[in-house]
């Protein structure tokens, strides 16, 4: 027992832990004290306490969906990305309507309820291309479209020379249901300038989300950590999200991912499982206004993702009928809905299939 105490020190983490248990909000220095100073199990226990307070029912949600990457052609050239092709480079593609239709049909046939559609920053396609794509899908299929991360929206609006507000309104009118939280990476500009210099700024990312929330679209938020950021930048990211959420309440969930270095321009060992669980846990205690935190089996594997259900996560993510971006970085895990249910049950929770906005779907 004493080892835990010695590890913890006496002042910082203890006070912060008291506040978490009392349901009080943490400031930056308190969050830092926990992230840097709290023993592993203490951090986990605090996160689990917050998770149980928000979701007293012993349930874990998941969604049946598919990632559709409509194109990998991208002018951004982010150093952490193994997926994109530069314009003109061999291997670039834009999905045809037929391919798109087939992928949606397969998703529905597998009991899927939504598609997650994202792509590169294509240099030529006009906003009408994306509007037509949405209208095409919506005209044929009853499926929730969770699409176009904030950097894509900013890119579309620049290319089209319209405001972000107008771009979102037009996409929404064409059938967009919600916006995925991708492209957040680390929401600190000094980090973004180094790892993704051509991608939208932190402020722009947050502004897209705030505007989307104002227009009635729900969104998620992600973080990709473990590349060139400092640990404090991860907390700055969390606090930036918390501030927007205070104003809008539009984020449904937070999803941290560990950077996967293979085939990318950043040479750095992958984050370990313990680092991931610590980050997940501190996210759960800082983001007191987020209902849901998602475990990432795609990057951590099913065993660590299952463990994450005791470190703040209450959602197991998606079946990912198709996933291309992480796979391009050499990490391939596969899970069926059946396997997800087995893993969730083995951890002592009831698996619940959900929609994008975290409503449970009754199983027939």
């Amino acid at each position, binding site marked *: *027992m*004493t*080892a*835990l*105490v010695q*590890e*913890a020190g*006496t002042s910082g*983490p*203890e006070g912060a*832990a*008291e506040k978490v*248990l009392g349901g009080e909000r943490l400031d930056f220095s308190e969050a830092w004290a926990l992230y840097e100073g709290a*023993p*592993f*199990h*203490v951090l*986990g*226990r605090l996160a*689990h*306490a917050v998770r149980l307070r928000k979701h007293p029912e*012993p349930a874990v949600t998941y969604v049946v969906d598919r990632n559709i990457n409509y194109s990998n052609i991208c002018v951004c050239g982010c150093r952490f990305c193994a997926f994109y092709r530069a314009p003109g480079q061999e291997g670039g593609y834009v999905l045809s309507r037929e391919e798109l239709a087939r992928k949606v049909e397969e998703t529905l046939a597998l009991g899927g309820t939504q598609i997650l559609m994202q792509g590169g920053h294509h240099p030529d396609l006009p906003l009408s291309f994306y509007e037509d794509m949405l209208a095409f899908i919506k005209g044929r299929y009853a499926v929730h479209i969770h699409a176009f991360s904030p950097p894509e929206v900013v890119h579309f609006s620049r290319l089209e020379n319209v405001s972000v507000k107008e771009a979102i309104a037009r996409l929404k009118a064409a059938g967009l249901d919600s916006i995925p939280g991708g492209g957040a990476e680390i929401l600190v500009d000094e980090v973004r300038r180094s790892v993704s210099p051509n991608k939208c700024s932190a402020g722009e990312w947050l502004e897209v989300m705030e505007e989307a929330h104002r227009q009635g679209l729900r969104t998620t938020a992600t973080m990709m950590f473990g590349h060139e950021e400092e640990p404090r930048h991860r907390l700055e990211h969390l606090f930036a999200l918390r501030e927007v959420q205070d104003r809008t309440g539009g984020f449904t969930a937070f999803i941290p991912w560990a950077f996967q270095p293979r085939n990318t321009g950043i040479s750095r*060992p992958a984050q*370990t*499982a*313990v*680092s991931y*669980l610590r980050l997940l846990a501190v996210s759960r205690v800082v983001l007191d206004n987020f209902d849901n935190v998602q475990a990432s089996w795609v990057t*951590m*594997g*099913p*065993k*660590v*993702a*299952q*463990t994450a*259900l*005791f*470190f703040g996560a209450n959602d197991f993510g998606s079946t990912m009928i198709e996933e291309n971006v992480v796979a391009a970085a050499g990490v391939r895990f596969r899970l069926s809905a059946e396997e997800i249910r*087995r*893993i969730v049950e*083995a*951890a*002592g929770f009831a698996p619940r299939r959900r929609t994008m906005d975290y409503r449970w779907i009754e199983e027939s």
Partner: protein
Amino acid sequence: MNDFLPPSLDGGYYEKLGLGSVCEKVRAGERLSLEDGEALFQCSDLGAVGALAHAARARLHGDRAYYVLNQHINYSNICVNGCRFCAFGRERGDAKAFELSVEDILEKVRQRLDEPLAEIHIVGGCHPGLPLSYYEDVLREIRKLRPAASLKAFTAVEIAHFARLAGISTLEVLLRLKEAGLSMLPGGGAEVFSPRVREILCPRKIDGREWLRVAGEAHEAGIPTNATLLYGHLETRRERLEHLAALREQQDETGGFTCFIPLPFQPANTKVTGVEPTTGVEDLKTVAVSRLMLDNIPHVKAYWIMLTVKLAQVALHFGADDFDGTVIEEKIGHMAGAESEQALTRSELERVIREGGFRPVERDCFFNAVAASGSAA
């Protein structure tokens, strides 16, 4: 833990989880009963179980996490036992059967002579034909090539098999192998001691009582051993706990167990059907309960070959203190579908240990720190 966590999360917390008395016993360093073990397995809060195991582990080992630079050699996969859970064994004449000559084995050892290995780990099937002199030669010749490395070789099952083939006692086998250079026995072949499960899975293998007898005999002959548990197939949690209790009892008598190694069953390519692979929570709970039950066995291993590196690192917080080695050429687990990497380098292994919050200590097979390692301090 008390001094740090507010009362609502500590004593009362375990009370609410039904682990109040277990928590008190762990605090006081008292022995846990089988019922305590069952309560730990049944606890809905994985972290609570892990924190108790971590406290027991920290009391024994502080923030040290051990690893070894070693070489695994499987001398043959030909085996007369035909255990249903095994994806490695082959019958003689099978197209995939192999059998290394003494010279083949020495060649494998020579290939890595420039590495400062502390241990050579040698196991194989229960081969129907190889004489005891083969095993003696293997040990003697490796000793000549690598006088500084410890030779951890031949499970209790193999020892009993050698004795039967040679028509001599297991004690005589142990003494002859020790004379030839044997340092220690690995812990394999224990599987689950439950006669019910062994009858189904490995009816031709020595029973649990015989396994323990050979291990105890080795201890008394000055040969330490490890001990394993193969879990996640047909056994109940109660049978797992009985296995741990049997090891604990043997250890009280002969004291020679160095490290306990829980091994999750990997069902792919085996003859055991209808069994799903273990999940992470089950793996971590089994490590934790093992640490808490086995109060007289000093070390618990997170065998990353079976657990994956990621989960093995987490297991260091759930009672494990050993990360095993930079294993090269491990065949038994991988043939059953283990998804881990084939080998880890020393720097990668140390990085994983450090990022987990522990201090890496390079060890030999007896868990003595290897003084020459620049990083053990």
